[in-house]
């Protein structure tokens, strides 16, 4: 397509034909406020915050949907525009619950930020009807408070477009419009997979995770309880953002220190159980390959993905690895191996996790996730944001914390584990182990990195010659992409050996529990890439980069689990799945 020249605020830029005025403004490095627009997610021209003046145009135009023409001259910040934006914000506030002080998004709310920017100070510009809504807290993961919703539709766009689920949408019309589920079913009774991408997209406080901090704090305060915490790989490249550090800042050591200062009795690393997952999963893969099991095998770490396949492709469930996720493996080992080693009654252990994920809150309550006499493997899952709030509330100066190590015996990990947080990371970690086990030869440093499966692309494919085997793999992130891969498996178009699927686009670094980045930043940079880079850097700096080399894992098998895929390992580390419907039968 031909390039055209556009002048925005006296800066002339060249953009491809078909670009919008907002694209041109971004090219010129100008941030135009957007409440409904979110790059790659939503562009519907509804919120009217991105209005700009185009010379010769009859009225103000919505930059996010206004097509550029050659020679166009536009202005993004005149007094007229500012007045218009101010009025729009006042109108939004006229039907908005302004309980800002107690709001989970206060100081990180896009609406609040814009009201401040444009000098919207009073809260009662327009008196009139107000909608009243009930809070939907039926879900284990996600809470919706429509009194704070501004109807931007980012959440519905991400649910339908990225995740191909569409369990939330617009109901009714005009002033009565609200975002909800069909027939006002509670979210928990739908095929919602709890991925939390709706929360990540929400500009305001209408969506947030179900808070578990109170229960965790109560457990810490209880002297009877031995409270342990595990932190997932992606938390260490997210948490810093809660304290104003740059996006993707690596805070592995500060994270351990912060959790310790909160009073957890032991501070562990989910990386340990990521390594454990890899040895169990690689072992399962090799068994399936050599013994004629169901192939392709598909990963099972992402609870959003697992619930998705249960609802949408239950006939493919035999393809899913029986391995529990790292969170759940960790919990099962804490209440058995660790409890025995420490001489603690597992009933007195409270097993907490901090995850980049909202679906983990659902996962811990699933069936067959209670390997030790019916005790839940994990009691509470916090999101990265919740841990950030706890650290903030405790008055801990996070930025200036020293780097501290994780506790033994479940604090040691390899580079293979830390990359779990990026799409393709589990695949790469599994390949490192599986290839060495199959060939019996160690991979050289240059062969250790499987670059083909890295990057934020939605679907990635690669083929490797491993000994006599031709191993064909696929990696998908975002459930719409997962659907594409599954359709190819179903139709027989592709013959993969192993598939990695993560529910969230870009993998866990962009999970529904990660710190929220306002659209003003997300419209310019790809947060997924920046955070993932932090993980790959950690990997390349690690002395050990293969899961099966983790000395603590080797010890765990020697002392307790006996061998990969042993009876005991199966009991503790593997699980089963259930078939679910997309739309349940209702009377």
């Amino acid at each position, binding site marked *: 397509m031909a390039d055209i020249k556009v002048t925005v605020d006296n800066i002339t830029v060249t953009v491809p034909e078909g670009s919008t005025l907002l694209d041109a403004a971004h090219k010129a490095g100008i941030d135009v406020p957007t409440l409904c627009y979110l790059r790659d997610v939503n562009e519907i021209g509804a919120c009217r915050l991105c209005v700009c003046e185009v010379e010769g145009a009859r009225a103000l135009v919505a930059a996010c949907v206004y097509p550029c023409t050659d020679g166009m001259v536009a202005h993004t910040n005149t007094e007229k525009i500012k007045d218009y934006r101010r009025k729009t914000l006042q109108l939004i506030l006229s039907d908005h619950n302004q309980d800002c002080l107690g709001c989970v998004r206060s100081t990180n709310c896009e609406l609040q930020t814009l009201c401040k920017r444009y000098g919207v100070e009073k809260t009662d510009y327009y008196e009139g009807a107000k909608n009243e809504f009930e809070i939907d807290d039926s879900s284990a993961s996600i809470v919706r408070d429509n009194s704070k919703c501004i109807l931007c539709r980012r959440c519905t766009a991400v649910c339908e477009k990225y995740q191909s689920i*569409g369990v939330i949408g617009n*109901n009714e019309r005009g002033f009565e419009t609200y975002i909800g589920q*069909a027939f006002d079913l509670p979210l928990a009774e739908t095929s919602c997979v709890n991925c939390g991408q709706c929360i990540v997209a929400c500009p305001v406080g209408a969506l947030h995770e179900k808070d578990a901090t109170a229960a965790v704090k109560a457990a810490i305060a209880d002297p009877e309880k031995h409270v342990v915490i595990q932190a997932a790989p992606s938390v260490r490249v997210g948490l810093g953002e809660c304290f104003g550090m740059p996006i993707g800042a690596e805070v592995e050591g500060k994270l351990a220190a912060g959790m310790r200062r909160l009073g957890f009795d032991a501070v562990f690393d989910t990386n340990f159980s990521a390594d454990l997952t890899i040895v169990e999963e690689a072992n399962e893969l090799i068994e399936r390959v050599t013994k004629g099991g169901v192939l392709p095998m598909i990963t099972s770490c992402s609870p959003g993905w697992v619930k998705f396949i249960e609802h949408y492709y239950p006939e493919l469930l035999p393809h899913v690895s029986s391995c529990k996720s790292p969170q759940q493996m960790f919990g099962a080992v804490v209440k058995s191996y660790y409890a025995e080693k420490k001489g603690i009654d597992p009933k007195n252990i409270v097993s907490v996790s901090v995850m980049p994920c909202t679906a983990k809150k659902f996962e811990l309550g699933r069936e067959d996730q209670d390997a030790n006499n019916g005790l839940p493997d994990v009691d509470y899952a916090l999101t990265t944001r919740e841990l950030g709030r706890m650290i903030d509330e405790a008055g801990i100066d996070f930025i200036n914390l020293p780097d501290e190590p994780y506790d033994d015996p479940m604090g040691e990990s390899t580079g293979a584990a830390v990359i779990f947080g990026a799409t393709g990371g589990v695949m790469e970690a599994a390949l490192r182990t599986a290839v060495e086990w199959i060939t019996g030869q160690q991979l050289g440093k240059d062969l250790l990195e499987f670059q083909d499966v890295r990057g934020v692309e939605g679907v990635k494919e690669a083929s490797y010659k491993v000994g006599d085997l031709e191993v064909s793999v696929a990696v998908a992130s975002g459930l719409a992409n997962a659907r594409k891969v599954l359709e190819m498996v179903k139709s027989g178009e592709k013959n993969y050996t192993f598939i990695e699927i993560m529910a969230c686009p870009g993998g866990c670094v962009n999970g529904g529990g990660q710190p929220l980045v306002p659209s003003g930043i997300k419209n310019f940079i790809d947060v997924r890439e920046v955070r993932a880079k932090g993980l790959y850097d950690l990997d390349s700096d690690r002395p050990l980069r293969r899961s099966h080399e983790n000395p603590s894992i080797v010890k765990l098998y020697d002392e307790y689990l006996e061998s990969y895929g042993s009876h005991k390992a199966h009991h503790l580390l593997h699980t089963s799945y259930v078939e679910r419907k997309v739309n349940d039968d*209702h009377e």
Partner: protein
Amino acid sequence: MKVSNVPFKGTKDQEAKLLEVIAKYKDQKGALMPIMQDAQEIYGYLPYQVQKIIADETGIPIEKIYGVATFYAQFSMSPKGKYVVSVCLGTACYVKGAGALLEEVEKQLGIGDGECTPDGKFSIDVCRCVGACGLAPVMIVGGDVYGKLTPDKVADILAKYE
């Protein structure tokens, strides 16, 4: 929009017709509206069970179907009663007191406009001018026209249909 709690009484025959409609439109872009219109033609309304069939067969999320159903006034999620009670709210009827008449009908039946009694006997549908302004205010019950009404006559009229 009011969603009825009247038990669903769809038949196999109706379902077969709906599946035929869906098959006709399958893979056609923008087919949701015509499918929903035909479905309403077949069942008289669009309860959960009908929207579920459309969702399961087309792969369109049921929320999307519900969103469309609640957006357009042409779709109803409440069945028509055995006797449809139409209270005219046209100009002439309105100035002659149709508002109070409707209130009385709603009170007597315990349902609002667009709803159906749990026993499936009556539903209320307000309408705009039936062309009998000389008889204002007018109400039609199961096809029978009643004119020059006052609220105190409503109970007796409805009792005829018990």
